[in-house]
């Protein structure tokens, strides 16, 4: 059975292999070229410490590197970000829809192989290589971006959208979700084009919605600064909510007017901002943040949501296939 579905999907699998080979070769070449740039401009140290004037890694030195390489690395990350959608569109959506359109599912249904076995073979043969390709390309891009260290996209922290979506479990989870979605809509609608359109729309909308909810996926930690004029947000963490506390430690609801009053007004600059804040009832500064170290947990929670949806979609596909005639 595996051999039969392999033969059926041979064209798509070869296309995917070609995408992988071309993509991997390009990534290897582009990484090698970047590494030689870093070496040639003696930026090795800056990769480790980031933009710091005292380490000889001033803005000017790093800027000329980033002018050339930053967007390229972002394109690489966006490529990995787009892969799951492509797998959903060209792997998942046509998987059952094309057979149902052409009526060839009847050939399998009128042999002794069970529908469940037929279905699971098709899913396995289509999904497993796609996952391998996605993960391999993800690792290559991570390796490349990692080579730029703290002067590349990683400097923006793990929650930077292009970094978050291309690291950890994210690509696998997105891929499985998009694939299952395409597969289900294809099996239910019996139309490849409908399945592709719906997959594209729903994947994009859901990815957007879930990434805007990203900061609510794990419980935030409250950071408090005794000096109300100084925020203590660590770079790379995700701020859920921020503001000021009064003397009793309660959140001050309308802090804006107080903050405005302590701003510079014409020729009478406020010299002691902290005192001014305190005079206006803003005793302490606080922020609820998801720290950079929690990125692994955020990945897990997000992946669990996508994988849960994928499982539901696979079961729904089974239902849709069983009721086909």
């Amino acid at each position, binding site marked *: 059975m595996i051999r039969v579905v392999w*033969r059926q999907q041979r064209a798509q699998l070869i296309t995917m292999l070609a995408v992988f080979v071309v993509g991997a070769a390009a990534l290897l070449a582009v990484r090698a070229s970047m590494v030689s740039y870093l070496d040639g401009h003696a930026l090795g140290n800056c990769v480790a410490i980031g933009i710091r004037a005292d380490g000889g890694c001033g803005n000017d030195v790093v800027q000329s590197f980033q002018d050339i390489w930053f967007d390229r690395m972002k394109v690489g990350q966006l490529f990995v970000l787009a892969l799951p959608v492509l797998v959903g569109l060209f792997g998942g959506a046509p998987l059952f829809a094309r057979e149902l359109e*052409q009526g060839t599912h009847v050939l399998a249904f*009128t*042999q*002794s*192989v069970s529908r469940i076995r*037929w279905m699971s073979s098709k899913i396995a043969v289509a999904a497993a290589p796609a996952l391998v390709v996605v993960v391999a390309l993800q690792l290559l891009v991570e390796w490349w971006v990692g080579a730029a260290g703290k002067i590349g996209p990683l400097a923006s922290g793990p929650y930077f959208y292009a970094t978050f979506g291309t690291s950890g479990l994210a690509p696998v989870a997105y891929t499985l979700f998009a694939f299952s979605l395409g597969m289900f809509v294809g099996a239910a609608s019996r139309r490849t084009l409908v399945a592709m359109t719906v997959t594209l729309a729903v994947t994009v909308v859901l990815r957007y919605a879930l990434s805007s909810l990203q900061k609510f996926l794990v419980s935030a930690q409250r950071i408090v600064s005794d000096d109300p004029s100084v925020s203590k947000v660590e770079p790379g963490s995700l701020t859920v909510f921020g503001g000021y506390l009064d003397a009793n430690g309660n959140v001050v609801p309308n802090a804006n007017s107080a903050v405005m009053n302590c701003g510079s007004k014409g020729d009478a600059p406020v010299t002691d901002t902290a005192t001014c804040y305190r005079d206006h009832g803003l005793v302490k500064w606080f922020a609820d943040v998801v720290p950079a170290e929690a990125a692994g947990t955020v990945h897990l929670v997000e992946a669990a949501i996508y994988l849960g949806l994928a499982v539901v979609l696979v079961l729904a596909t089974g239902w849709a296939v069983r009721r086909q*005639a």
Partner: protein
Amino acid sequence: MSTPALCAAGLSKHFGRVRALDDCTFDLPEGRVIALVGPNGAGKSTLLSLASGLIRPTAGSISVHGTPVRGRMHPDVAYLAQNRPLYPDFTVREVIQAVGAMNERWSQPRVEEVLDMLAGVDRDAKVRALSAGARTQVAIALALGRLPKVLLLDEPLSDLDPLARDETLRIVMTEVADRGTTVLMSSHLLSDLSEVCDHLLLVVEGQVRLNGDVEDVLAEHRVLVGPRDDESAVSGVVVSASRAERQATLLVRGADPVPAGWVADRPDLESLVVGYLRAARERAAARR
């Protein structure tokens, strides 16, 4: 006879409000070549799909050699679907291997033997490049590879040229001679089937109108020609009638004895079936 090859009890299949088959109960004998006849949309394909397990009945049941068919292919059944599903980008050889891999009981030699009986099916040709006739023949060869006891053929002779038609019939009839397979084949053209079938299953508007040995069915019916004003003298059930000013021509089931003044003739299969179909159409027209 032993257990019937196919047995339907209260079999119904509704698609929404459409009653493709409605409460059909019948037995089909083993080893016969059965013509499944009826107008387009009468429920022939639905009946074959139910018998193969491709679809599930709305009500009732269908069984093959005593084992019920339940939503999946019965091991003793092979089914030639009307659209001849074959993977278009496979070669004939590949499609044979593929179908072999999808079956537990499978005879590669049988498939080869059947294909060898045919003129000009190139095993290395892509399925999409085959003529309609060659596709049908490959599909039949694949069905016979399952070594079925019951062979279901949906419109097996449509879009075949005369030579392919003859070859195809020869394959099917050889199968019957060799293995005693029961064949149930549908056609909306009776002339395709009348010469090779020995049993008739007539389905009209989702219901079985006739089911029996062709000779028996023909022997039960008479075409009576006689005076129009004397129709009350005719016994039996009038299936259909055409009336001129003075003369009436009646297709009658069980018209014994023939009344005086009437001429009786045995109908041939074609006129018998046409009589039933015409009657059905008139009833449908009367309802509207």
